Structures are given as C-alpha cells and as structure tokens.
C-alpha cells in the first residue's frame, strides 16, 4: 500500500540546513496498523507530512497504492489527498464555526458530492463513531474525545485508502485515549490501513507493528502482539 525508498528531507534554517530525514525505507501493506514512534525531533512529524503530501521530499521514492508520488502539482496533490488519505490531528483541527455534521461532510464537498448525499453520508459516519445525537453541535460544545471522534469520522467519510493519525491521543486523558484507540482498531478491523504517530508506549502497543525513528533513520521495525483497547474502556 505504502512504499518509500531512501527518503531524504532537510529544512533550511537561515544559513545552515537541518537534515531531518536521512534515508528512510519503509513499506506498509493494506490492512496494517502501524505505530511510528520517536522522541521529538526524530523526524516523525516530517515523515507524516511527506506521507500526507503536505510537504515534498528532497529525494527518494514514494509510492502510494501503486501510484508514484513525485513532483505533484498542487491540484494533483489535492486530488490524491482527497481520494487516498484521511487525516487525524492531535489538535483535532475541526472548523470551529461548523457543526459536527458539517465538519464530517467537508471532505465530501471537495469530492463534489451533492449536498443531500453529503449529509446522509456524514450522518452515517457520525453514527459509526457514536455521535449521531451530537450532529448539530459545534466543536466548542463537544469534549476532547468527542472532537477527536468527529475528526476520525471526517477522515473516514472520504473513504480513504490510508488513515494518517498524528498523535491522535496527545491531547486526551488515558480513558478517552483508549476509547479513541478502540475506534481506530475497529476501523482497522474493517481492513483499513492506518498509520499512527505517537510517543506513548501503551498507545503504540495497541497497534500491530511499531516503527522506531531516531535522528532521521529507522532504528527498529517490529511486529507486536496487539493489545485490544476495549478491555480498558
């Protein structure tokens, strides 16, 4: 599903440049649930940005579902993002003046889905994350866990091939974190490929595979026995 070869990325910081990714090789198959771990500054967010086509690599190959991702125009990148990827962020990134339903419907708007169909679909995904009754509420009226569930519903609404979650539990307490992870596991059970960036051990062990990043290179890549989150909920 995802394949990257010898990926390099550096940032210009004034006169000197900062080499963040120093040759990453990584492969993930369909249906995998991978945790990407590493301390801050290890390059994990940069990797996720490149995987999410929000940033370009300096060199190396990146193939997503058999499509080479290279030198994309902004428009093409936007199309691929819309079709292939769903994002979940640490700070939820919901649009604060739109209701939960409208937030979930937004990626469908950019897919050109008609209004009525958009709302039906969005409601379906809200129901899936258990927030059907909260459809008309604004993000400010939701708890952190509910916001993240809305964000996940939004990421799923576009029916992407890969779900990218950047510290999805970073802003949540542990009980809520497990609820969110439970949801992510269930989505994975349905066959979706999910990448989770985290620095929490327990969250990482709820995935099926852990990739350790340090100073811009992968230092460890192992399969783990998945800890189910529902036992904590």
């Amino acid at each position, binding site marked *: 599903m995802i394949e990257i070869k010898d990926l390099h990325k550096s940032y210009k910081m004034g006169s000197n440049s900062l080499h963040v990714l120093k040759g990453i090789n990584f492969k993930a198959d369909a249906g995998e649930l991978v945790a990407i771990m590493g301390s801050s500054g290890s390059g994990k967010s940069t990797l996720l940005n490149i995987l999410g086509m929000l940033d370009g690599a300096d060199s190396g190959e990146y193939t997503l579902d058999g499509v080479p991702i290279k030198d994309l125009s902004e428009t093409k990148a936007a199309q691929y993002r819309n079709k292939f990827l769903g994002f979940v962020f640490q700070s939820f990134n919901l649009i604060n*003046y739109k209701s939960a339903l409208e937030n979930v419907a937004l990626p469908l708007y950019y897919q050109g889905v*008609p209004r009525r169909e958009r709302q039906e679909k969005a409601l379906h995904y809200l129901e899936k994350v258990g927030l059907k009754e909260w459809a008309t509420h604004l993000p400010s009226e939701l708890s952190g866990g509910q916001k993240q569930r809305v964000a996940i519903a939004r990421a799923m609404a576009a029916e992407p091939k890969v779900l990218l979650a950047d510290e999805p539990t970073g802003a949540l307490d542990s009980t809520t974190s497990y609820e969110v992870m439970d949801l992510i596991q269930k989505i994975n059970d349905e066959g979706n490929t999910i990448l989770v960036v985290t620095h929490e051990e327990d969250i990482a062990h709820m995935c099926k595979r852990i990739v350790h990043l340090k100073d811009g290179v992968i230092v460890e890549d192992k399969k783990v026995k998945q800890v189910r989150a529902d036992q904590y909920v």
Partner: protein
Amino acid sequence: MFDIERWQEIFDTIRKNKLRTFLTGLSVASGIFILVILLGFGQGMQNGVEHEFKEDATTSIWAWPGVTSKEFKGLNPGRRIQFINENFETASSMFNDVIEYESPRIFVRDVNVNYGKEALVYSIQGVSSDFQFIEGPVMREGRFINYQDEVSIGKVAIIGNKIKKDVFTDVDSPLGEFIDISGIPFKIVGVFGEMRDREEERIYIPITTAQRVFNGGNRINNMSFTLPPVENFDEAVAQAVDFKKNLRTYLQQAHTVAPDDNGAMEVWSAMEEAKRYYGLTGNIKIFFWFVGICTIIAGVVGVSNIMLIVVRERTREIGIRKALGAKPWSIVGMILQESIFVTAISGFTGLIFSMGLLEIVGPNVEVDYVVNPSVSFNVAFSTVLVLILAGTLAGFVPAWRAAKVQVVESLKDE
C-alpha cells in the same frame, strides 16, 4: 463563480460568522462613507473657490480717472482728470464695432435718502440700462433701468435685495414704494440680487437723472464696456488687451496726458484677471486631485488591512481545508469570493448612505468657499471598485501563501 454549492458554502460561512462579517462590512462601509464625504467636500471647496471668483461679466473693461504724475505739453503734473459724457460718447462711437454693452457711471454723494421717517445710508449710483449686463446684477423683482428712463430723466430707483430685507420689512414688495433722495421722490421699480451682500447695498438710478438732478453736469466717474464673447479664450484675451490699449490711447489724447503716465487713468480688463484666475483654478484642481488621490490611498490601505486580518484569522481553516483535499485555487477563490461579496455589499451601502447625505445636506451648506459639496456617481462608483480591487489583491497574497506553503505550519499546535 456561479457554482451554487460554493455560494451555499459561502452563505453558510457568513451566517455563522455574523460578528466578523458585520465588523468587516462596517469598517469597509464607514471607510467608503468617509472617503465619499471627503471627496464631496473637496468638490464643494472647488465649487466655492470658483464661485468666489466667477462673478462679474468676464469680458468687461473698466476705465476710471486718476491724477497725472508727469508734465506733458506744458501741463503740470498733479492734475486731476475728470471724465465727461463726451469722452464716453466718443469712445462708444469710435469702438462701436467691437463693443457689446456700454455704460457710464456716476457716484452720487452727499445726499440724504429717506424712506418714510427712516434714513437710509446706502450708496447711490447713476448708470445706464446696459449696466445690468456689464456688472450682472440679477433682477429678483421688477425691472432694471431702461432706455425710456434715461431719455425721460425718470425718477426711478432699483434697490439691492439686502436693502429690501433691511428696510422694507412692513410691505410685501418694495415695488411702487417711494424713497426720498434729497427731497425728491423716486419710485422703486426693481430689486436686484448680487452674490455679495456689499454689492446689494446699492441704489441704482438712471445716469441722466443723476447728472441733471444732483448737479452732476456732464461729469462721469467711470465707464465700462463689455466685448462680445469669443469662443477661444486666448482670442478673447487678445481682443480685450487690444481694446484696452485703444481706449487708453484715446482717453490720454482727449485729456492731454503723457502716453507713459500710468497714474492719470486706469483701464482694467476682467479678461486679464480671468486669465490669472483660470491659472489659479488649474492649480486648485491639481490640489484637489492630490487630496482625492491621497484619500483614496488611505482607503485602499484601510480596506487592504481589514482583508489581511480576515485572511490571517482564517489561515488555520485554509490549512484544514487543504488537508481535506481542497485545491489551493478553490480555497483562495472561496475566501476571496466571500470577501468581495461582503466588501461590495457594504461598500455600496456606504456609498449610498454618503451620497444620500451629500444630496440632502449638500445644497444647504452655506459656508464661504464651500458650495454644494457633491460627488459624481461615476467617480464614487469607480472609487468603490478600486477599493474592492485593492482589498482583493491585499487578501489574495496572504491567502495564496497560506494555501500554497503554510499548510504544515498552519496546522501546527498553537
């Protein structure tokens, strides 16, 4: 632009951000309001300045006597020159082919004027019927002196509007009333209005009457002529200068004055003054253009600033939309479409209010050097368009940058 889905999205955004929309609209509307009022007053001041200068007929030429300052043909300097009827009549027939209107004038001095028991302290001038066209008093009531009055030495008087307001408060109209000038009753046959109050404090009587009744003999104090109007301004000036020179030469010869004795008599042409005045209005126009452009620049800066703030506030939203698969153009286009929509609506609201205010208040403004402040609709309309365009440009740059580069930045945790 005509995508219904997009308009729905925009109205959604406007509906849910009422305060932001209102504040943006208010600042744009008030900016344009102030701008149009300022432009209007600029125009008003220009009108006022033009009004102050544009009074008496501009082709008029005046001649009045002075005192000689040079010895000439055995005559001593210091001799006082006195024009007489003959001078006027000769000049009139000499230059008959270029003169349009002509009038001698005499100032009647040391006479008592009474209306009933009230003593009036106004100047009395004897003029001929043409004088109306030379100095241009506008008749408010009745008529001016006519030829018949001159021939019959009629005892008629034309009074200024201010005299009517000050003295004839008890009667509906001063026409038909009599005033006593040195014990002789004069019938009021007309009321004239001038632009300046001072010029309305005059009483005109026929020159023949003034000379006959008040011992004027054949003396006159000054004489005035107008030349027929010429389309071309420079030709008109040349004609006036030519006439002035000929008139002076004749008068100098008639009174035995040295050709280079400037103090003996004065010949003055309004056309030459007008030439100076036209130069002045040119400068004034440039000045107000400058003021107008500065005001528009201030408006552009203001509106652009508002746009910048609005876009800055939405940077994060731009990032989110982009992560969800929006094309950069569609985000920027939508935000600008919304901004233009809000700016245009509020801009034209401000325009309508300010133009309405100028329309209602403008004609009632009575201040020196400000006359009828107004602004042409085309100017105001294009001003609003310029502001919208400038605001759009100002909003476009940061929006484009946000959509293009700063996605990663804008989504970072704050």
